């Protein structure tokens, strides 16, 4: 389940981040960020498995992709800020 969301400000860094994760073998889906975690209006999110969260954060940082936040999707569909 892809329940860890990294928010990214716009589509280009999101695509760059997605490619970096894919290259490293981290399963990832790029999507429009749900309103609840799009803190400044429209944004994109990269969803990964929670177990990959630490690796994903490191890979995104290495790729120069600045994330706005990391979020854990809970079973009721809400989000809780995650610290990775």
């Amino acid at each position, binding site marked *: 389940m892809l329940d860890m969301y990294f928010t990214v400000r*716009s*589509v*280009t860094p999101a695509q760059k981040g997605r490619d970096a994760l894919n290259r490293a073998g981290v399963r990832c889906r790029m999507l429009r960020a749900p309103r609840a975690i799009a803190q400044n209006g*429209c944004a*994109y999110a990269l969803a990964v498995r929670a177990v990959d969260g630490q690796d994903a954060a490191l890979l995104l940082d290495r790729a120069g992709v*600045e994330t706005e936040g990391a979020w854990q999707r809970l079973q009721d569909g809400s989000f809780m800020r995650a610290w990775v």
Partner: protein
Amino acid sequence: MIYLDNAATSLQKPPQVAQAVLRAMQTCANPGRGGHASAARAEETVYRTRSLAARYFGLEPEQVCFTANATEGLNIALRTLIQPGDRVVISGLEHNAVTRTLAALGAEIEAVKAPLFDQDAWLSGFAAALSPQTRAVVCLHVSNVFGAQLPVAELGALCDAQGVPFVVDASQSAGLLPVRPSDWNAAFTAMPGHKGLLGPQGTGLLLCRTQPAPIRYGGTGSRSRDQTMPEDLPDRLEAGTLNVPGIAGLGAGLAFLGAQDPAGLLGRERELLRYARAGLEQLGARVWSGPGQVGVLSFQLPGKDCEETAAAYADRGIALRAGLHCAPLAHQTAGTLTEGTVRLSLSVFSQQSDITAFLNATKRILPLA
């Protein structure tokens, strides 16, 4: 028609360019604006071209910004760097895209003059012109009138040593010569997508190694609640709906070029240029040529007006361009401002038979002089 006006725009493109344009028109919605499949397809189309360009020019994808043409890119670069009264050093070969923009900005322009094909003289001229008051240096890579190549790598090093931002107009070199903004320390490098890169008209690239100031404001699909333009590239420069079909076509052009042997393409064009020059000189034409010349050849036929010369070629199915080529400063530098020149310019699709036909037409046109 024999098309030898590629410095204006390339007309012959790989067939996959038009196919990509059509496919994008039929399948792509607005990139970065929605989560549905057709928006996602547009996003991927745009990102593919951006990534191809980034690889081609040795940059990161976000440093590649789409513009409508090289002129728009140069406007962004110059409006970012120049304030009224700022002193700007340019080559004496610059296009109106540079000179008119600087004039509109109220810049104090110093144009370096040198023999067209003497790269050392250009470099010395720039070195002498730079001063602590210089706010920017702007230089084309290859002259759109004479095909003269300027030493942008060395100029970039000179600017870097003096802490002066360097702007390169790669309009005539992109797709033919290596364009390496990082190696040149270029703050901005502007180019059209529709010339050597073989994309459609209405496309261009601005390669940014410095944070630019936007000249267009509006929606970017990001940080929507902010009423200032995003700091992030490329969004900062890409307000409004992008030319997705054009960008798709440009991507196909870049992919085509990426599969070629760049040294082979350049060598072939230079060989054709030498053939044209030798033939013209044999027929008594005045020809501007020299070491390092790339893709473009200016000439005059004795006693004949350049516009009438080009019209005579057009009557024979040969497309050339005459006049001042939107670069009066270059003609002033070369001493051809009054009479202008006729310009022949090549592309990767130019053939030896095109030059032979051009020279045969020249033989027929000359007696009319």
